[in-house]
């Protein structure tokens, strides 16, 4: 697969009153053609800064970046023709109508008025903007604005679309709709690079993802690969009688598929390579030795486990204590 985004040792720091803030500290990334690439990390991790450098909005301090086949530093103009960018704040001139915004966007990308009109009609159809395309953007709901923002981003049929936290602030229904839209775009051949601080978004929507923290990529791969790296599903077994605990622990420790075992009060937590395969074996073993099981729960690792493993803290908590330097 061809890469549409490749970066090596990408860096960027900002001067602030408190000194120099290293927002991006040597990022290496590869985004394949046609992929939905998720860029996950807490607020302030440097996601937006990275994205803005790739979209030519911020000068690259050091390192290399190739986007859509062109060097961002040397040929920003060529890159701009081939990328779409939807910022966190969203775009669109609020006092114009959605349709006018689309046409303006097309014209800025060099389309003739006729082409821009035709393309706007096409997008209004594709994105279901019909009802409100003729209204001023100020009157739009959050979900409607987001759809228009995406429309603006793809007006010129870019090879790569950068979406900066596209679903932040959307209700679940609109969020699902937007995911669907992003999948459709990806299906039609546009490579998508999106940042998010939602675990489920990175997990479900993206084909591959990178986890960023404190300006560095701490993990990259498919969601499945990253979870497998943790190499364990966790199984929580609670027993009918507490006395069985030590016996069960001894017994299970012998098994080759159990990689780790901990005893917590009245239950055991085991880590196994493949939970689904291990579960029947576990039950058979315990039953065969006369140890009664009250409940047994199998849980797959989540991206939060992955984040925890690489950074030593949970993503939920990480977002709260961060500096809020991600947006600008």
């Amino acid at each position, binding site marked *: 697969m061809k890469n549409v985004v490749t970066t090596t040792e990408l860096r960027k720091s900002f001067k602030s009153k408190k000194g120099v803030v290293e927002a991006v500290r040597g990022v290496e990334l590869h985004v394949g053609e046609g992929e939905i690439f998720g860029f996950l990390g807490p607020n302030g991790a440097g996601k937006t800064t990275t994205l803005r450098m790739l979209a030519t909005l911020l000068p690259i301090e050091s390192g290399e970046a190739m986007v859509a086949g062109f060097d961002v530093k040397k040929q920003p103009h060529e890159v701009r023709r081939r990328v779409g960018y939807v910022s966190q704040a969203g775009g669109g001139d609020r006092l114009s109508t959605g349709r006018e915004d689309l046409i303006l966007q097309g014209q*800025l990308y060099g389309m003739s008025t006729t082409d821009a009109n035709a393309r706007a009609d096409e997008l209004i159809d594709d994105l279901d903007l019909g009802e409100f395309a003729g209204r001023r953007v100020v009157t739009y709901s959050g979900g409607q604005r987001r759809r228009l923002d995406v429309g603006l981003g793809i007006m010129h049929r870019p090879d790569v679309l950068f979406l900066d936290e596209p679903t932040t602030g959307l209700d679940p229904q609109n969020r699902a709709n937007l995911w669907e839209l992003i999948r459709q775009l990806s299906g039609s051949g546009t490579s998508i690079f999106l940042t998010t601080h939602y675990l489920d978004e990175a997990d479900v929507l993206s084909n591959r993802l990178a986890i960023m923290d404190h300006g560095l990529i701490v993990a990259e791969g498919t969601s499945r690969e990253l979870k497998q790296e943790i190499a364990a599903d966790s199984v929580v077994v609670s027993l009918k009688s507490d006395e069985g605990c030590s016996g069960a622990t001894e017994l299970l420790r012998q098994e080759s598929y159990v990689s780790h075992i901990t005893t917590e009060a009245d239950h055991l937590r085991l880590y196994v390579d493949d939970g689904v395969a291990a579960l029947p074996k576990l039950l058979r073993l315990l039953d065969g030795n006369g140890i009664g099981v009250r409940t047994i729960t199998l849980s797959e690792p989540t991206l939060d486990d992955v984040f925890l493993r690489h950074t030593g803290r949970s993503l939920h908590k990480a977002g709260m204590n961060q500096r809020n330097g991600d947006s600008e």
Partner: protein
Amino acid sequence: MKRFRATYIIWLRDLKRHFRDRARIFGSLATPIIFIFILGQGLGSSMSAALPAGSTTLDYKTFMFPGILGMTVLFAGVFSAVSIVWDREFGFLKEMLVAPVPSWSIALGKVVSGATIASFQGCLMLILAPLAGVKLTPQMVVLLIPTLFLVAFSMTGMGVLVASRLKSMQGFQMIMNFIMMPMFFLSGAMFPLANAPAWMDTLAKINPLTYGVDALRSIMLTDFPSRYPFAFDITMIVLISSVMLGMAIATFSRQS
């Protein structure tokens, strides 16, 4: 010409947007009307002494009218430029800057559209001229329109220059207090600068609006002795406009 496409597109968008907003077009006439007909009427009797000799027949409202015209253009131009800050806050500016068009072309578009809007607002004001005792002849109007545009161009250029450095709308209040109001009061719009103290005179000399107001007054008030020759005013305005435009484009391009 291809490089000026963005300039044209942005000019067209801003104009469309302005003319759709009828309330704003007529609303922006409220302040000048208040100045001329309330302040002008109220101060009229005491101001007549301050008006230079040889213009005893000149009503204060008439004297003030070209100044208020200058004020209209100053405010409309700067307000229009401030839309850059809005666009920045709401993300639209980023989208424009990611587009494969040179950023100077965008900045120029903002200046030209602001200047067009501001000079239009100025022309609209001319309807009120008879009420202020200004007798307009067709020749005057022919001369006024390009002059208004030039003044508007320098004011908008300054507006874009300032707006490029503003990060948020909060900063705009500062601009009002520290730039626009002093510029207006030190331009000779409200009172003749002939008897002003030296410090005020110096400030007036570096105030671009001084030349604008003086030029407008030269055209409209034939029996009023203007501060500078008309040609000098125009030269100064052209000079200031070019400098402002250059700086505005440089600043706008750098911040992006």
